[in-house]
């Protein structure tokens, strides 16, 4: 029995249609009041009027459709809000104006005071205020978030707010409406994340937040924090050469305990970087001490590439990725194994790594130099294992692949989409996972998932495989199908419901089930991929395709507990009718059409799929038709024979006649005997 889940959705939708821009019946989004300082990479912020309680302050973030947000963080904060953090109050899909497309809106607590950034633009904060108010507030919020297994990833002065104009307690701003780290300036990101594309920086770990905390506190001390007019490349070089602390401080000495804190938090070596525990100890007026074995980033002797000398592996990896074709030529002219072993003496280069990197001297035979680009990407992963994956201008962290794919699809740049396809080639991402997993924790954690995605993309699915990755790796991304431009479809339940609405006016179901819709279902509904594969295999046979589509929608209806889908069922019934009319057997045809008409009105696709299997019916019909043809031919032959005149000389007439004559003869004998017997008496 189907539950009326879709009816609930319908009622919600109706409510939205009645009152556009109203959240939960009380929060009115004020589109006339944009709040650009709250904007994120995930959406635009607007003021909110609470119709029931004007004392509470909120703002609304209207999400961009192509940018995923941090659904796990939102869910956790909605469940248990965190003190010292601007928590989300609710998320709802609404139309902001009548007739406009649906948008996802997150209602967020508004801060009571200015942002740390705006205060710093006027005057730097004293060490006392930092230690008394700012650091404890941030540490407390980070402590709770990290305790929940979440990272903050948006810590910068512009996103830390005072809870009142007295400039005492602080609260952290929104960290959940954009991909992690997407809004962070590169110098608020640790070295290995700073070279990744902003959308592809990934969740990172607690140390990533600690680095951002260090950068934020340094900004508090200095009054502001900038790259000092240097380009990203120059600033990266400076960070490598001097260490992030000195590059950011631009030579300014930070004395005392504050200096210890900042140097500890801004340490480029994750093992050396202060943790929350050490920061808490610092807040309690003590200076912690720690030592750890750090990774050696220096070459045994300088490497000469493009007439420049490189001593740091991370710099060389970055420049390899900037000049990949020259790097490929450079690498192919080396005895790579010997070169690595003599240059990177602190690490073992074994046969496994050698075969994975496979730096052969043979020239690349690919027309697009894929082999060269892939080689450079693999070498970069070995030389800078903590750095992002770098391939043909893309740069993403292992934990930031999902948002990176979303950003590329949202840009609509086909050449970048093709590059993305190449990333999943066995010689790029899967090889890089194997190369750097034992040295890169994020890669080790995300490697198995990425390998599975690479397998799906390489299974010959091309763009559809990428779309599967897009939705599987971005659980909060709504369906991007052009057919759904008017809707915000974030769940498969809602998608099937919207498809049912669209089916009422659509003339072609196949245009509704476009690659985005199919990939969305495959990524988010258990076993849907099996049905989509069947549809793909049946593409050239309309009967099998229609059967596969019906089975797919039936599976979705049951798996999603979608309730009656009258429009889709009627549509399927209507589409199946011409195919049913092709059945050759009159009774079968009439029965099937009657069934389709009856089931088309009920809205139960499962019943329709179970009762009318057009593929089986057509196969059976064809077989029976051939048998009927043979039967008819045999009948025609027999009838022709029977219609021929029977001659007395024909064997059958002769034998029958003689047998009858013999019978008469013996009858005569019998009569004679009886006559003789009776005459004798």
């Amino acid at each position: 029995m189907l539950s009326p889940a879709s009816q609930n959705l319908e009622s919600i939708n109706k409510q939205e249609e009645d009152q556009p821009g109203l959240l939960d019946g009380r929060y009115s989004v004020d589109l006339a009041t944009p709040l650009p300082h709250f904007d994120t990479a995930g959406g635009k912020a607007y003021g909110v009027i609470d119709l029931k309680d004007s004392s509470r302050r909120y703002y609304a973030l209207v999400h961009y459709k192509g940018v995923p947000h941090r659904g796990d963080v939102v869910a956790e904060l909605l469940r248990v809000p965190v003190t010292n953090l601007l928590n989300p109050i609710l998320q709802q899909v609404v139309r902001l104006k009548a007739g406009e497309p649906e948008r996802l809106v997150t209602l967020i607590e508004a801060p009571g005071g200015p942002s740390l950034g705006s205060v710093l633009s006027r005057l730097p904060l004293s060490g006392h205020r930092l230690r008394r108010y700012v650091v404890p507030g941030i540490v407390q919020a980070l402590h709770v978030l990290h305790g929940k297994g979440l990272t903050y990833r948006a810590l910068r002065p512009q996103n830390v707010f005072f809870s009142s104009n007295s400039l005492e307690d602080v609260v952290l701003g929104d960290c959940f409406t954009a991909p992690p780290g997407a809004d962070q300036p590169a110098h608020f990101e640790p070295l290995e994340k700073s070279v990744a594309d902003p959308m592809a920086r990934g969740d990172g770990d607690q140390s990533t937040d600690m680095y951002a905390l260090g950068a934020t506190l340094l900004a508090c001390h200095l009054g502001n924090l900038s790259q000092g007019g240097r380009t990203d490349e120059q600033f990266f070089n400076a960070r490598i050469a001097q260490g992030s602390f000195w590059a950011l401080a631009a030579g300014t000495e930070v004395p005392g305990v504050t200096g210890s804190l900042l140097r500890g938090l801004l340490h480029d070596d994750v093992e050396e970087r202060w943790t929350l525990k050490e920061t808490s100890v610092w807040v309690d007026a003590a200076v912690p001490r720690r030592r750890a074995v750090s990774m050696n980033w220096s070459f045994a002797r300088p490497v000469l590439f493009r007439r420049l000398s490189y001593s740091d592996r991370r710099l060389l990896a970055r420049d390899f990725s900037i000049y990949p074709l020259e790097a490929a030529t450079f690498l192919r002219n080396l005895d790579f194994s010997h070169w690595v072993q003599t240059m990177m003496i602190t690490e073992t280069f074994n046969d496994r790594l050698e075969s994975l990197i496979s730096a052969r001297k043979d020239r690349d035979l690919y027309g697009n130099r894929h082999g060269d680009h892939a080689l450079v990407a693999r070498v970069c992963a070995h030389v800078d294992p903590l750095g992002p994956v770098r391939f043909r201008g893309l740069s993403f962290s292992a934990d930031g692949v999902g948002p990176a794919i979303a950003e590329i699809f949202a840009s609509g740049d086909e050449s970048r989409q093709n590059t993305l396809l190449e990333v999943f080639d066995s010689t790029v991402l899967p090889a890089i996972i194997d190369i750097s997993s034992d040295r890169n924790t994020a890669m080790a954690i995300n490697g198995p998932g990425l390998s599975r995605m690479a397998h799906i993309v390489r299974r010959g699915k091309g763009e559809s495989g990428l779309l599967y990755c897009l939705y599987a790796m971005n659980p909060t991304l709504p369906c991007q199908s052009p057919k759904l431009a008017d809707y915000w479809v974030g769940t498969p339940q809602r998608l099937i419901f919207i498809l049912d609405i669209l089916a009422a006016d659509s003339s072609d179901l196949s245009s509704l089930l476009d690659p985005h819709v199919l990939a969305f279902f495959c990524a988010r509904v258990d076993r849907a991929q099996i049905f989509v594969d069947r549809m793909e295999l049946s593409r050239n046979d309309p009967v099998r395709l229609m059967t596969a589509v019906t089975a797919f929608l039936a599976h979705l209806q049951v798996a999603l507990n979608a309730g009656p889908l009258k429009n889709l069922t009627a549509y399927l019934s209507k589409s199946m009718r011409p195919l049913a009319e092709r059945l050759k057997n009159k009774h079968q045809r009439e029965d099937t059409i009657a069934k389709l008409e009856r089931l088309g009105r009920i809205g139960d696709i499962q019943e329709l799929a179970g009762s009318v299997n057009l593929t089986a019916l057509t196969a059976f019909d064809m077989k029976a038709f051939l048998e009927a043809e043979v039967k008819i031919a045999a009948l025609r032959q027999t009838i022709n024979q029977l219609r021929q005149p029977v001659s007395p000389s024909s064997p059958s007439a002769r034998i029958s006649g003689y047998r009858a004559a013999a019978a008469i003869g013996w009858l005569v004998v019998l009569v004679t005997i009886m006559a003789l017997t009776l005459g004798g008496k």
Partner: protein
Amino acid sequence: MAKTGTDRKESRKKERKAGKASGQRSRLTPFLIYLCLGGLLFVSPPVAGLVFLGLIPTFVVLFVDTTPEKVARLNTMFSFNLSGVLPYMVDMWEKGGRMVHLMEVISDLVAWTVMLGAAGLGAATLWLFPVLAAGVQQILNRERASRLEKRRDELIDEWGVKVTGSP
């Protein structure tokens, strides 16, 4: 429909079996006739003589007929011929079955007319009955053809005209 090799083999086997059975029957019938005549020759030679003379048309068929339907034809001829001979046989038997009685019958033109006339009647039956059988078969075939046509029309109605192979 063309017969397959296996079908042909089976039909040949069947024919061979049927031929064997009819051959046995064709050998059995003269054997029985000879046995009866031989027995009769021992019991009453004059009666046996009458039988031998009276059944001459049957013996002609027995020795001359080479058609596949020989047994049925022989049966017919024998039965009719016998019904002509039988009254004189019984009469002779009742009189004692002596040679003089045989001579009486042989010299009786009516007796010859009856015995050979009965055989003639048998021959006429053999000519007439295949004609009658052909007529009856024609009528039965027509009825069966009508039934089959009805079945064919039902099939065409169920499957459409295309099932007949016409475009």
